[in-house]
């Protein structure tokens, strides 16, 4: 499984504009870390489409792309629509970023 994630916008949008997305491959992770990631991904896959509030300003948005077995799933959230599961996944990814 390969997970790619990117952050956009926010107060520091000018800085983020030039930053490339980050990526992690479970093949390159220890087995327990790979299992943790798989669990977090499964929990973050939204059961319903996210509602995008139009009035949030300076909120960052996040795109996490999960490629697994030929399938690709894209998860998106913003600071104003963050779920605990999405936040946990993002947090884990940032902590393990290469």
């Amino acid at each position: 499984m390969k997970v790619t994630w990117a952050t956009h916008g926010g107060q520091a949008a000018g800085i983020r504009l030039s930053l490339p997305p980050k990526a992690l491959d479970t093949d390159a992770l220890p087995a327990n870390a790979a299992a943790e990631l798989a669990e977090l991904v499964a929990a973050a896959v939204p059961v319903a489409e996210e509602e995008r509030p139009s009035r949030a300003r300076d909120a960052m948005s996040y795109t996490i792309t999960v490629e697994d077995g030929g399938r690709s799933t894209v998860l998106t959230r913003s600071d104003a629509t963050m779920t605990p599961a999405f936040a946990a996944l993002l947090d884990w990814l940032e902590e393990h970023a290469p």
Partner: protein
Amino acid sequence: MTRTYTLHCIIPPHLLEKLLSSDDSEVRQVALDTMLTTARLRGERAVRASFAGAAATPGNARRTVFDCQNGVFLPLAVFARSEDGLESADDSVNRAFGGLGTTRDFYKTVFNRNSVDGRGMRLDGYVHFGRRFNNAFWDGRQMVFGDGDGRLFSDFTGCLDVIAHEWTHGVTEFTAGLDYHNQSGALNESMSDVFGSLVKQWSLKQTADQADWLIGSEIFTPGIDADALRSMKAPGHAFDNRLFGKDPQPDHMSDFVNLPDTEPGDNGGVHINSGIPNKAFFLTAMRIGGFAWEAPGLIWYESLKASHFETQFQDFANTTYRKAAELYGDDSAEQLAVLAAWQDVGIQISGILAGVARARGLAADRNGGTGRENGLATVNKQIGALTAQVTGLVRDVNALKGQVTTGG
């Protein structure tokens, strides 16, 4: 005007209702639990807030700060400080509380505006949002601040202009309601930078030439080689290092950055092209001189109130020119400063020829403004160009005369 607020909960209420009728009993139970929890939290918060603010008059821009305790779900945040409460042991709480108050006092004292909505709306701030959260935002009803990751960014409550920036997003929401895309979005961002900077200048009692005109100058950790998030004085020069690259903000319409109107494209570059109106405000303030929150701030504030959802750079420039005349008179130093400032960032006020604008701009510089030398140089160039044209015309006329004579 009455506005209705909706809670941005994790799962929208209409979906929760749908889930309540799911065939799966577990899904039904989860939906029910979520609805009950949300309702309970709403109730708790309302009771808690009213208790906390019992000594303050309701609707009097009363401040309340909540601690997210590194969570991301605002209704779960715990009460940290209110108007009648004691100072907190937490610096982030106190900084947010102080920043909300300074901004509230600025708007009240300078523009006689009673809170974000002009009607004493309560001011709710949330600190310690998420973990290593490098941002601050206005969610449509309240202000949220992260701690920063401690590696690149420090606590976002550490910058008064950043707090005032978010506060002003609320003001814009309740006045022009500038659409958060492309030019109107960049104006929205610029308003927050302009008044964010003015709040800082007001609190420090700085004149335009004493101010640093930086947004978020304390936002980076000490080891980071960057001045700030943005510079209104020199857009495009707030940072230039290996980690962040170069500040992409333009300071002139000729360098306007066309980005896609998507989240990766910063909604058409709302935080990028704001450099252009930011620079126009800076130039106006420098030309007028003195305290920037006085004439320049008032012209911008009145123009914001006279703007609307789809206002573009050109519209806003025209409005500031008109407002300057209404407030200070036609051809006043203030109006001429506005005219010259927009011209310097590549925006001609509608109905005024460039040469005339430049000549009038010179009048604005009579008292010694930063644009004086540029203005003189430009007028000299224009005179030179006109002289060359006249010389050419005389030559052409003489040549024609010669042809007529020869032909006759």
